[in-house]
């Protein structure tokens, strides 16, 4: 194994600025998670009864979709990492295919969430209905916006791969977008049991 492969890489993948954003996002969502769990602690019955209205199945399907999309993205990143000056076109094409699957997952997630929100709003539930729904809507709508942005970022990367825009020396932008998408996945991994399962 070469020194390059065996030695620890100094910086996280992608542009360092995205990691500042990721750390800030984690803190922001972390505070919202704490707000939810400590409010629940003071209103257990209210939270448990309100939780029955939200669909665990759509939460589960969306978790599966995000995990799978993250897998597709990391497979695409592998093609970038293994790219050489000779095979950069082929690597871009293969990465674009994995990205397309990930984008489709992102769109499916958004459609399922819109259906879920339509159901909730159709029941006349809104932010001020009670504390559970305030946190539920705030957390899930906020996360929804992140998925929307993440899907848009993946699409921009996808478009660039279609014109062989990434080379062995320059694929940092690709990793930057991928890192953002994995953060969206990580946030949902905590959000799913917290809002949909724990009672």
């Amino acid at each position, binding site marked *: 194994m070469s020194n390059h492969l065996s030695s*620890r890489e100094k910086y996280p993948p992608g542009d360092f600025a995205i990691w500042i954003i990721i750390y800030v996002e984690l803190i922001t969502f972390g505070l919202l998670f704490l707000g939810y*769990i400590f409010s629940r602690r003071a209103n257990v019955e209210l939270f448990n009864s309100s939780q029955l209205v939200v669909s665990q199945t759509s939460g589960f399907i969306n978790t599966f979709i995000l995990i799978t999309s993250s*897998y597709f993205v990391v497979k695409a990143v592998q093609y970038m990492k293994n790219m050489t000056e000779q095979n950069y076109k082929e690597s871009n094409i293969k990465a674009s295919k994995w990205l397309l699957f990930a984008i489709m997952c992102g769109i499916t997630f958004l459609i399922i969430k819109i259906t879920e929100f339509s159901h909730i709003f159709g029941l006349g539930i809104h932010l001020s209905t009670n504390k559970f729904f305030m946190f539920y809507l705030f957390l899930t709508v906020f996360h929804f916006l992140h998925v929307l942005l993440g899907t848009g970022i993946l699409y921009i990367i996808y478009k660039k791969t279609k014109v062989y825009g990434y080379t062995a020396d320059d694929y940092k932008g690709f990793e930057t977008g991928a890192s953002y998408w994995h953060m969206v996945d990580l946030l949902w*991994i905590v959000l799913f049991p917290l809002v949909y399962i*724990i009672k």
Partner: protein
Amino acid sequence: MKRILEYTWIILVLLTIFAYLLGYMKYINTSLIALLLFTTLIKGELVIDYFMGLKDVTFKYRVIPIAWLVFVISSIAYAYYIPI
């Protein structure tokens, strides 16, 4: 390990199915909640290390999301278990 990403995805899916099935129980006892939180910790750790690709970076960058995850999961456990 050659197929580490595939194994990671399979573990994530299996732990998600476990959480989903747990959600259908009318009453989840405290041991199962502890198990659920532990599996959530494992899932988050797998995403951080293998999907985000932080396993091989300098520890100071890797430790931030791991510390965040441990803090959030511990806080959830604390709020769940400690009586008001």
